[in-house]
């Protein structure tokens, strides 16, 4: 026969008080995290650095296991993907021919105009270590940190386009916020009409294109590149293509396939000097010359 415990498992009033206190402290931590996010973020980076450093042996089989689940596709999905790829391939063939023509023409024009191109951007390569693991945050951890000279705000790109930017720099690892993160906002230009707007993340692989100057000048398929406004990203980095969702909102299909992100490149950006003394702009010599 089933026997009921004599008392409710040591459920004394003192225990209720302790539990109430702990809940209070936890809510305090939550509020503190909302006020001073940087401190929490730094503590998190320290803990994650330790975990990542000591668990490589167990994370590798786990990632294979997860990949197995992630790569699972139904027959219907495979068929649809196949059809899409065939269509893309046909389009790519046409574009390839057009590109060859454009390249020839461009080379001829560059030669005629004696145009000097901007110096190439330098970059640092990094390995993607881990994902944020949260449904609300879209970010990755990379294997470079303060020790390697990384700084917050530097843009991160891959072979094709922009991935995101560095938000937290730890001693040995850094966190990169992706363009799809709900907190990510980057100024862009939609080509060929040069319309300016903002890419606003929403946790999906196709973030919104908002605050557009002239919506009527944008068509699905247009290229989206960074505008360089605000100095966060250099100008002209490829981001993706404009698409229109079922609700009619403009979104950007990102060039980067985040699912296969193994390596990334970081673009070190020169910090913009604060103009505290405008006279500095003229320089000592020019001022003294004028006085004379």
């Amino acid at each position, binding site marked *: 026969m089933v026997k009921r415990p004599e008392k409710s498992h040591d459920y004394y009033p003192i225990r209720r008080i302790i539990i109430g206190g702990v809940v209070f402290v936890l809510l305090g931590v939550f509020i503190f995290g909302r006020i001073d996010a940087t401190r929490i973020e730094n503590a998190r980076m320290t803990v994650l650095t330790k975990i990542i450093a000591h668990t490589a042996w167990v994370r590798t089989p786990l990632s294979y296991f997860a*990949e197995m689940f992630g790569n699972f596709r139904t027959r219907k999905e495979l068929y649809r993907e196949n059809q899409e790829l065939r269509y893309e391939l046909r389009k790519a063939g046409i574009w390839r021919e057009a590109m060859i023509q454009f390249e020839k023409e461009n080379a001829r024009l560059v030669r005629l105009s004696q145009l000097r191109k901007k110096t190439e951007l330098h970059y640092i390569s990094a390995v993607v270590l881990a994902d944020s693991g949260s449904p609300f945050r879209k970010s*990755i951890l990379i294997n470079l940190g303060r020790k390697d000279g990384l700084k917050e705000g530097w843009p991160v790109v891959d072979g094709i386009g922009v991935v995101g930017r560095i938000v937290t720099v730890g001693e040995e690892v850094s966190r990169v916020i992706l363009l799809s993160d709900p907190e990510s906002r980057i100024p862009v230009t939609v080509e060929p009409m040069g319309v300016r707007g903002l890419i606003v993340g929403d946790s999906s692989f196709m973030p919104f294109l908002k605050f557009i100057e002239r919506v009527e000048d944008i068509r699905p398929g247009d290229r989206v590149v960074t505008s360089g406004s605000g100095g966060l990203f250099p100008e002209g980095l490829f981001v993706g293509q404009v698409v229109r969702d079922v609700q009619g909102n403009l979104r950007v299909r990102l060039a980067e396939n985040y*699912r296969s992100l193994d390596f990334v490149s970081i673009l070190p950006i020169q910090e913009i000097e604060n103009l505290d003394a405008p006279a500095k702009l003229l320089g000592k010599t020019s001022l003294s010359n004028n006085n004379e």
Partner: protein
Amino acid sequence: MMTIKDYKKIRDWATYIIFCFVVVLFQISTILETNWGSLYLPILLFLMALIWILHNPEIAHPAVILGGTFFLDFCLFYPPGLWSAIVLLACEILRSQSRFLVTSSFWEKAIWIMLIIGVAILVHHLLRGIFFLPRFAFLIEIKRLVILIILFPLIYGMVKMLFTPLKFDEGYI
């Protein structure tokens, strides 16, 4: 000197902590293939904790459950503290009822647990909204609950298997 009960206690605590640790590792190891994982894994651990409390309230210590949940909160970029506080409160509410539920049927237990999880999800959803934090669409929250109901017998069996009470534990069949 340590008794068998102490060993069992440590074993069960370690099992729960290891589960939390594996979830964190699984989530951070899977580069952006985490949609289903981040949706269901933390809540499955919560379900596991609740079943564990009903199964063996003496051993399912709140500090262990809190430790595991806070570790998850902290590492997986949730706002630390909020989900842990909700989980702790929910566990303690269920614990206060465990005396009556220990002899109840499987379905009664399932209804109680699902009710508690449903309320916890709702409170979490509302609080995230109040603090202007990103949150799932309400339909996704319902989907999470439905998936939990479907998986309940499986998790229940798993917890029974993993956290087996000793035969001579007082008050148990």
